[in-house]
């Protein structure tokens, strides 16, 4: 009897301390970054370009690049993901081989390491598609699209985040009551009209959630843009899809590993991390909030 009680006590203690440990890690992580990054963070830091070989100045080009990256990525990934989710939940038979193949592909895609996406982007978008475009446009004389740029980075990132969008939108479409679809169909609406006027308007929060989660994921990944478009330093902002760009995650990576004077950039590294964390956290929280709204709707 004592043995059993002791076991109970041990399990409780171990599991509670593991949970506590996780909270502690998050607190230490955030605390460390806040403490060290706060002093460097300023309005100028957010609005100015790097200076003095990137040991001073701000990170505006990296913020701008990140922003541009996720916007282009969303413009491509969210529509494709939404349409795929519509197909999966509305058109494909739940047990059809094709639907199963898509689901399998989506799940596999979600498990592929980010660096593999980066290499795929380099091989497919940069060399194959970009190189092909250059061949057609100038016979290969001018290297314009066949090199890393923000478009190829965004497309690579769109692939990476596609599963997030598909799963989130499909989940939301499923919460639209069958009764509403039937009502619409019974009034002589076609299936497509029903999807357009009833299903999609009622899943808009799910689509938004998917977009936000994708953006937050995309903003935090470095590997996919490593070979496909991110630049170490650029004197000007990108103004064409064939330009390279600076990005927050990549900025942290190069400053901590490739800088000529790593010691001098520590403050900047912390502050950049702080900005990146604030960005992804706030995006995640809004996604959680939207998801909560979807859930409470499907509950009644």
């Amino acid at each position: 009897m004592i043995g059993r009680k002791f076991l109970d006590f041990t399990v409780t203690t171990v599991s509670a301390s593991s949970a506590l440990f996780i909270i502690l890690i998050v607190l230490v992580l955030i605390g460390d970054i806040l403490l060290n990054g706060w002093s460097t963070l300023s309005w100028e830091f957010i609005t100015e370009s790097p200076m003095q070989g990137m040991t001073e100045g701000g990170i505006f080009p990296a913020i701008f690049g990140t922003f541009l990256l996720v916007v282009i990525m969303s413009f491509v990934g969210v529509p494709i993901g939404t349409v795929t989710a519509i197909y999966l939940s509305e058109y494909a038979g739940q047990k059809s081989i094709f639907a199963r193949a898509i689901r399998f592909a989506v799940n596999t895609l979600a498990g592929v390491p980010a660096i593999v996406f980066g290499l795929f982007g380099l091989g497919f978008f940069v060399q194959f598609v970009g190189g092909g475009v250059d061949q057609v446009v100038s016979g290969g004389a001018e290297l314009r699209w066949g090199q890393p740029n923000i478009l190829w980075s965004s497309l690579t990132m769109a692939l990476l985040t596609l599963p997030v969008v598909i799963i989130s939108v499909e989940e939301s479409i499923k919460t639209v009551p069958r009764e509403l679809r039937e009502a619409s169909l019974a009034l002589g609406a076609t299936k497509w009209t029903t999807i357009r006027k009833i299903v999609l308007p009622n899943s808009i929060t799910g689509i938004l959630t998917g977009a936000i989660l994708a953006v937050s994921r995309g903003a935090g990944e470095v590997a996919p843009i490593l070979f496909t478009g991110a630049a170490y330093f650029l004197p000007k902002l990108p103004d064409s899809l064939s330009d390279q760009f600076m990005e927050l995650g990549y900025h942290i990576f190069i400053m901590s590993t490739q800088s000529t004077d790593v010691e001098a950039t520590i403050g900047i590294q912390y502050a950049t991390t702080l900005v990146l964390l604030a960005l992804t956290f706030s995006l995640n929280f809004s996604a959680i909030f939207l998801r909560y709204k979807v859930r409470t709707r499907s509950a009644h």
Partner: protein
Amino acid sequence: MDNANYKIRTRDLRFSVREKEALKGITIDVKPNQVTALIGPSGCGKSTFLRSLNRMNDLVEGAVVRGTVLVDHIDIYGPEVDVVALRKKVGMIFQKSNPFPKSVYDNVAYGPRVNGIRERKVLDEIVETSLKQAALWDEVRDDLSRSGLALSGGQQQRLCIARALAVGPEVLLMDEPASALDPSATAKIEELMYVLKENYTIVIVTHNMQQAARVSDVTAFFYIGELIEMDETRKMFTNPSVKQTEDYITGRFG
């Protein structure tokens, strides 16, 4: 009565999902401008039968339909039939009132709109007429922009009726339209059916014997996928010719 005068005729209608037969050869004639009630215990196929009349059963995966259903002498399962046009002609009211999360106006205007009517004046007129026909106009006329979901249960069901009427159907299929409503809301729906049958042909599925007796002209009794008996309601409820029907109506089973 002349054969040409039936609105809906089914001949040996069979419906099955993955080898399981839910309708085992139903042959029924429905006269226009009458209320035909379908009664029977749960799982007897009456709802399935109702939903084959406007092909809502098409949505069931793996469903197989055999036999014929004629609406105005046209086989609605024929190859060149336009399902969208059929559903405009044969409207449906569901068991659970299901207004769209839109305003009262937009709920009623939904059908006309998806069928291409854009002109505001025409829509206004359709909305008003339909709401009046559904005996809801006086209760909502002050504020057509309020959400359909803000109405009471009985009002919601009448909104659904108005919404169905707005596309100009000739037949109304009602699947236990009052089963979720309180007695006074039920009474309103029943009164409404009495008025509506002057212009429409109504087929109603109901679990409520008294309701079938009150509202219908003809009653059909279903049992395990088969039509046991169909006759004038007056006769069915006073002097049924099959023992099973009598047992069910008098509450001995079901």
